[in-house]
Each structure stands twice: as C-alpha cells, then as structure tokens.
C-alpha cells in the first residue's frame, strides 16, 4: 500500500463529531481495544488527519501532534487499519496470524503475503476453540474472514511486522494452502512507517 516514500501533507484538525464517529468505528472494528480506548484516544487530545497518496488514497489519523494511530483507505469495504506503532503499543487488541521466518523478508519488501508462509511449521493461523479470542499461546481462537483486518506477526520475533486486510479467509487458507492472503499491507520500513508526522 505504501511501498513508495510518502510526502507529508498539512495536518487538519477534526471536528469533534467526526472524532466521535471515528472512535465508534474503531471500537466496533476492534472491540478488544475497548479497555484502552481512553489511552489511545484521550478525551482531551484532539485528533488530526493527514491525506496520503499510496497505491490508493488514504487518510492517516494522528493524535498529540505526531503520534500516528490508524489509517483509512479511500476504497469501499476496507476496514480502518492500525498504524504499526499503535499495534506495538497494544498488541493484545488486534487479531493476528504469524508468518514463518523465511517469509519475513518478502513481506518487508512489499510482496503479497502468500499462504505457504502461514501454513508451514513456523507459521500460525487461528486455532478455533472456546475461551478468549486470543489464546495464551498467542493463537487467535476464531477463524478470520475475508475482508477482516489482520496483524502479521513473525516467527521468532516479538513485534508485529505488517498489518492489512485478508483477501482470503483463514479457513480457506488452511484448506487450499496456496494463493494470496494479504495484499497491499502496511509493513515495517514502508512509506507510512517512515512518514514524518511531526
């Protein structure tokens, strides 16, 4: 999505009605963020927006002058997606899958995430079972559907390396074992990651 470097554009202050609806949107997309919402979006801080030109047009939301929170792609049916820095701050709030070590360098060069990187021994897909959505071993306990947002973790690493929207449901990925899973992700070192939001 942001393979090329982005040029910062002027930040705009958002009306409080828009701030409220974004807060709602964020909570309905990421219910697990609820306990932290006042920390993510402190009531007293004002939310800013910055227009971006990636593969698609997008809007980045920023708080406290420079802390990036999430972005919205200007395209129907793409969910609100968190900036990786927000994921690093609250990893427990986002559904995850994990790629094997071999897939990391491809994802970090902007390639489409393919099924084999997830179905191999080092990869990890949801493991449906009772209990909390995030199991203690880090597995997500509910299959994720096509069109849902997902955070990409990596074998042997503690922090997430990418975030994007699933173009295939996780059940389908397990069954077929091939094909694209996340396209146009936001990944460590891409234009959005490096964007100066000061």
């Amino acid at each position, binding site marked *: 999505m942001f393979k090329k470097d982005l040029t910062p554009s002027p930040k705009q202050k958002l009306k409080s009605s828009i701030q409220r609806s974004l807060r709602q949107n964020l909570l309905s997309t990421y219910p697990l963020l609820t306990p932290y919402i*006042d920390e993510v979006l402190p009531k007293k801080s004002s939310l800013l927006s910055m227009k971006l030109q990636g593969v698609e047009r997008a809007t980045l939301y920023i708080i406290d002058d420079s802390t990036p929170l999430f972005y919205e792609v200007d395209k129907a049916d793409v969910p609100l997606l968190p900036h990786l820095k927000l994921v690093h701050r609250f990893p427990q709030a986002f559904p995850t899958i994990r790629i094997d070590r071999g897939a990391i360098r491809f994802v970090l060069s902007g390639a489409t995430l393919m099924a084999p990187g997830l179905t191999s021994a080092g990869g990890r897909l949801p493991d449906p079972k009772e209990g909390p959505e995030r199991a203690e071993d880090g597995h997500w306990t509910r299959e994720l559907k096509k069109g849902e947002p997902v955070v990409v973790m990596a074998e*042997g690493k503690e922090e997430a390396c990418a975030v994007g929207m699933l173009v295939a449901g996780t059940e389908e990925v397990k069954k077929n074992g091939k094909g694209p899973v996340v396209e146009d992700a936001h990944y460590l070192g891409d234009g959005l990651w490096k964007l100066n939001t000061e």
Partner: protein
Amino acid sequence: MADVESGEVLEPQSRHVVYCGVCTMPPEYCEYGGTVKKCQEWLEKNHPDMYIRIWSPEALAAATASLSIEAQKRAAKDAQKKAAKAEAAEKKEADKIAHSIVTIKRIERNKRKYVTSVSGLEAFGYELKKVAKDFGKKFATGSSVTKVPSGGEEIVVQGDVSDEIEEFILEKYKDVPEDNIEFVDDKKAKKAAAAAAGGS
C-alpha cells in the same frame, strides 16, 4: 484543595517499544534493513541487553536453524545486496550534499526596497514550506515559497535580511556547511551587466 478527576485513574497499558536509532524498525528486524552494521553498533551502545539477545551467536544459530540451507544462502545474498544498495544510496546522498549550494540573493525591487531569495535548501533535505515559515517568524516579515522559471522553487523573504539569514541558516539548518552558501547581489549584477552592455 487538589483537583480530583472523576472516575478511576488507570495505569497506562501502552507498551513502550524500542526502535532502532538507525533504521527505525524494532531492532529484531534490523537484519532486513540494509544497514545492519550500523544498526548493530547503535544497539550495542544504546541497549546492550537487547544486543546480546538479538545478535549473540546462540541467538543467531537459533534464528537460522529453521531455514533450509538454500533459504539461508538466498537470505544472505539478499542481505548483501540490500547493504550494497544502502551504501551506494548513502554515498550518493553525501556527494549530492557536498556539491549542493544554497544561494542567498539580495534583490532590489524598487529603490531601497529589497527582497531576499534563498534557493537550494531542498538539496539538504529541508522542506521549503517549513523553512519559509521559520524565516517569516524569525524576521517578522513576509516569507513564501515561489516557483522559479527554471522549474525549481525558492524562498522569497521581504526585506534585506541576507546577512542575518546566513547566520540563521548556519544555526538552525545544520546540514548546510558554511562553505556551501553563496551570496549574490542582484542589483550589482544588473549594474555590472548594464555597464558591460553600455561600454561595448
């Protein structure tokens, strides 16, 4: 009486993640960035505990154990390519900076009315709009970015601030070496040209 906020005060839950001072990624991902050597130096100096966790021989052995020999070879080659690319880009940037000039020009608009133009700062990685704002604030005068006929942009500041502006640039925009700043006095240039034309 002290202010009492309504509601409970919650402990912050946000994690604080260390990012590499060189490549900006979490240090565990530095190996993919193309500046590995510099990243390692930075980490060893700033976060020695993390350095050991990530770069000790044991950690490295564990990290590559799950890759096939083929994949390890490809990864090593890839890393080498990236490093070479990063190095070349760095050298190019350094060359560009060494050969770039910032021109401060005093231009006489009307009798005793001057503007000062500054061009070339973008080559040193500065955003002209921001700099123009800084100039305007510093000298309490109009300052804006305008297009020049040759295609680029320059900053035009109202008034003759050519001397002060050099000092300000050296103080605030430290990537510009003093030797790379030149002065032009547009009025003199005109006069000289007129004189030359008249004399022939």
